[in-house]
């Protein structure tokens, strides 16, 4: 049951990412225009929708990506011990990266 829930969360995160990653790629990399200065990106982040959207985006991206990586690693390492190590390691990496990204996203909003 637990595995089923994790898998469903992977699907939900993927579905969310389809729209959030799609808009990220469109607005940041395909809309064209000159590169923004640091001040301009800070001004953009003053709108609360921006850090809020990116918080959800990063959480979904990290979960989706690390769950996928976990699946690939589980194919090779399938003893209970090695899977436990993989679970702890990927959870640790995911939480550290998420906290770093969270601070990155919200610092411009509060500055």
């Amino acid at each position, binding site marked *: 049951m637990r595995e089923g829930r994790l898998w469903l969360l992977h699907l939900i995160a*993927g579905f969310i990412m389809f729209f959030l990653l799609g808009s990220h*790629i469109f607005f940041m*990399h*395909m809309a064209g225009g000159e590169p923004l200065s640091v001040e301009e990106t800070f001004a953009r982040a003053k709108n609360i929708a921006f850090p809020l959207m990116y918080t959800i985006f990063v959480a979904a991206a*990290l979960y989706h990506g690390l769950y996928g990586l976990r699946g690939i690693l589980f194919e090779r390492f399938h003893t209970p011990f090695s899977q436990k190590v993989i679970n702890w390691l990927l959870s640790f990496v995911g939480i550290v*990266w998420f906290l770093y990204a969270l601070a990155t996203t919200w*610092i411009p909003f509060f500055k």
Partner: protein
Amino acid sequence: MEKKKRYYPNFPGVLGWIYGGNLNFERVLFLLHRITGLALIFYLFAHIIVVGFRAYSPEMWEMVMGRISGHVNPVILFFEWLLVLAVIFHMFNGMRLIFLELGFFVGKPKRPIYPYTTSIDRQRIFTWIMMILASIFVIWSIFAFFMGGGSHA
């Protein structure tokens, strides 16, 4: 007590992603989905760190972007485009997988009467539709990256 083996006896390894089973269209998509997925997760780690420079040290951000931005180096712009290709493919193939895993576009169950049909045949139209949609975005990305200014953030 029998000790559990460290890996499955017929585990084909990473090369088995290619040669395991029939190398049909869906298998190629599976392989590409894995490769692009792995590339994207490792890129995501690097991307989060680099974007973090902007908040923690704007001077460092300006210095890094002055070296590795697609605006200053066409080779990097090309690799950025490859990354966007990976994103587009992974997005559309992933959406296909979500729909199929939830049971959409596979048709109703049938009795196994000869000549047998497989769900692969029934879902392939949907697969082609998703790949055509992905191709449209790929063509758009070529215009956006190499004829219209490319990335800006």
